[in-house]
């Protein structure tokens, strides 16, 4: 099922952290990893994240499931960077740098050590972003996301609509599964068999009922929330939960600022490129 929208209950630092600094942490780390193309720099951040996960008593394996689910995408992304990465293209001009070819018989797509180092960094960078997103979702109830959005002046109806949508995902998944079951019982062989044309032909069997059920559910939900006064006076709506920044949240914000500033300086000074690891390796004569 890939990404599960659920919250793992807990009382840890990440759980208690206000949704706003948590989002900022996500955004800042995303920016920071973009600054760096060196596997040691990026890898350090990943290790720090894994330690944080452990410290918050959240299963690393469970959080990493999203990485596993995206593995195909990651492989393709890495292969592209391996060959097309600027370091690799530059280094491949000198034949002595070439380790091997991805397509050996034709001597196509040369791979250099610089390319390997660079693409490893980018792979780790990608992993960090999706891992962190999952970590945030695991520790932040949808209501808190809504509240954060409302505080950031998103229209409440939009924020609430988003949260209802999130909560409805598992129900919709169940419907999809039931439709597949129900159609299989009529001799349908599903989307996994036959060639592309067969697959395309088989799509409406699944999509039409799913679409109709989706519309029906959407209407039922609309009726149910109307009946609970949803459209009454949305500007004056109150929220049971109050989100207020406490000292831990402010502390986190300070760390985030330092992190962002420090990384910017390092980046500006030219640190953190893939050449760092490459020259280390070269010096060790590997």
């Amino acid at each position, binding site marked *: 099922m890939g990404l599960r929208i659920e919250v793992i209950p807990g009382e840890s630092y990440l759980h208690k952290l206000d949704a706003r600094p948590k989002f900022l942490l996500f955004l800042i780390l995303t920016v920071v990893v973009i600054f760096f193309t060196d596997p040691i720099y990026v890898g350090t951040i990943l290790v720090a994240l894994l330690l944080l996960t452990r410290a918050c008593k959240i299963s690393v394996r469970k959080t990493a499931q999203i990485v596993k689910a995206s593995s195909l995408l990651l492989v393709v992304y890495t292969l592209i960077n391996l060959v097309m990465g600027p370091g690799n293209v530059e280094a491949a001009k000198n034949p002595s740098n070439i380790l091997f070819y991805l397509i050996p018989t034709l001597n196509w797509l040369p791979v250099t050590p610089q390319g390997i180092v660079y693409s490893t960094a980018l792979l780790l960078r990608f992993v960090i972003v999706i891992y962190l997103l999952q970590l945030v979702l695991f520790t932040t109830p949808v209501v808190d996301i809504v509240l954060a959005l409302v505080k950031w002046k998103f229209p409440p109806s939009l924020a609430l609509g988003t949260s209802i949508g999130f909560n409805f995902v598992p129900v919709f998944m169940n419907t999809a599964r039931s439709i597949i079951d129900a159609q299989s*019982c009529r001799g349908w062989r599903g989307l996994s068999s036959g060639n592309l044309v067969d697959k395309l032909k088989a799509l409406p069997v699944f999509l039409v009922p799913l679409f109709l059920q989706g519309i029906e559910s959407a209407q039922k939900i609309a009726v149910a929330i109307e009946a609970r006064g949803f459209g009454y006076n949305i500007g004056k709506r109150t*929220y049971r939960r109050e989100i207020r920044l406490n000292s831990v949240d402010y502390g986190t914000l300070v760390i985030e600022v330092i992190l962002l500033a420090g990384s910017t300086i390092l980046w500006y000074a030219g640190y953190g490129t893939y050449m760092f690891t490459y020259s280390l390796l070269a010096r060790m004569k590997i």
Partner: protein
Amino acid sequence: MEKESCLRFSTVPSLASSVHSLEFDNVTFSYAGSKKPALKNVSLRIKKGESVLIAGPNAAGKTTLCRCMNGLVPHFFLGDLEGNVIINGINSKSSRIGQLSQVAGLVFDDPTSQLVCSSVEDEVAFGAENLGVSREEIDRRVAESLEAVRMRGYERRLPQTLSGGEQQAVAIASIMVMDPEIFVLDEPTSNLDPIGSMQVLSIIRDLARKEEKTMIVVSHSIEHFVTLADRIVVMNEGRIILDEDPREVLQKTEQLLDMGLSPPDVTTLFSRLRREGIGLAGDKIPVTLEEAYDRLKNMSIVNPSVSKQKALSREKRMDVIVRVKGVRFKYPTSDVFALEGIDLEIGKNEFVAIIGQNGSGKSTLVKHFNGLLKPTEGSLSVFGLDTAETPVWELSKKVGYVFQNPDLQLFNYTVRNEIDFSLKAIGFPADKREPVVNAVSKRLNIDQYLDVSPGTLDKGGRQRVAIASVLAMNPDLLVIDEPTTGQDPANSRQVMNIARELHSEGKTIVFITHNMGIVAEYAERGIIMLQGRVLFDGPVRQLFQQTDVLKESYLEAPQIVRLAQMLRKQGFPSALLTVEEMVQLINENRG
């Protein structure tokens, strides 16, 4: 919740002087785009504090009536509204749903699609938040509402992971939090299992006791509301047919039966006896089990022959077609086994009911019969085929599976294509398909709709189309998953009558249901499941005598069976199953 006047909101005029909570004044309503009115000249007055049951077959207008009560009609469901609906003194035409929802709270039949938040407490708070209630007041109301539906301790739970009964309890609490004068519950128990229904019924009972609250319940289970409701309103085809004291309405049991409703067994019994001219019927039909017992307790049965009919059909052991051996099953996402070691055999031409609460493993078990699920441990063979190695589409030629919701399956432009689809899918020769489609559609009485879109048919019609598309493959074993849940009695009966006909032609039928009356009337063999195990497996006649087993699994025998059991001393056989049998028995033993 009744004590604080601060629960009132300035926008709602206080109309304590008004005697009526609800007034329908000659209301006719047609949904936009529909020529046929859903309500026709409906006039209805409901007093403050009254509890009213609304009964009626499909398309009677019950749900439309409910939607009028908080302004969903005409403000959300647009259409042509004639006449006036006055809700606590406010005319629905000149108000908004948001305002009216504070006066009349609606609870719907489908628990999953009315719960929208990620925790029970957020769910319950949602309505109060929308009304702009202060934070402290919300907390107080949430706690109070959860207390009232006995759901304290569930605050942090995810609503979607609760049982159906618990979800419906949360849905009721999330209406209570808005403190409406009027509670409108549209089929609150029709999608629930027996435990869930009991849970919700007891909440409704508490609500009805509160004198200042008006309660309107739409339900098919008249039996449960006889002593609870002050009035029963019977609707049919958009009109109010009867509007009287429950006792008076039930004197017209035959009329209710003709409309396809399910009056209590005891009233059906006495109305039958009255028709047969049997003296002991008296002038008034008793409406409760106790009253019926009082009427019959002086009778004595000397010739209890009935139970020999519909004999214990399992004794004529036939070819085994389903063989389940030591099957355990675990869903990939779960840590517990949904089936904990099942061993059973089903023979050719059996008629088997599988009963038990939700989560007991019924659906999980039958989904093994056509390979939708493969056993984690143990083995399962169907018509000699190992289901672990045979694809579902292959098994579907032998095992037909009818789903509860036909809309999961229908996707074609015409009914003809819909039926033809399964034949095509299993590779039935093209030239032989048309005669099959014609024959099946004729049998299910949909041959006149072959060229129309299935979407234009009513639910009963769509269900027949879905069944036709399964029957076209001519399966020898038919599995029917909950033909009674969320259905009106006429629709459930329609499906079961088709099953009975197929059974008489030699087919094997396995069905799942929560309706014990249907089990008693149709099945020969009954299997009770509890927590992934088979608790009882035997003839239905014996099943309802297992009072301990029934109690353990929170099931209740049909009212007529309970009556016969109360009358054991008078010589009534406790294996008696149907009203029909009781009538016959009394007939043979009178005088």
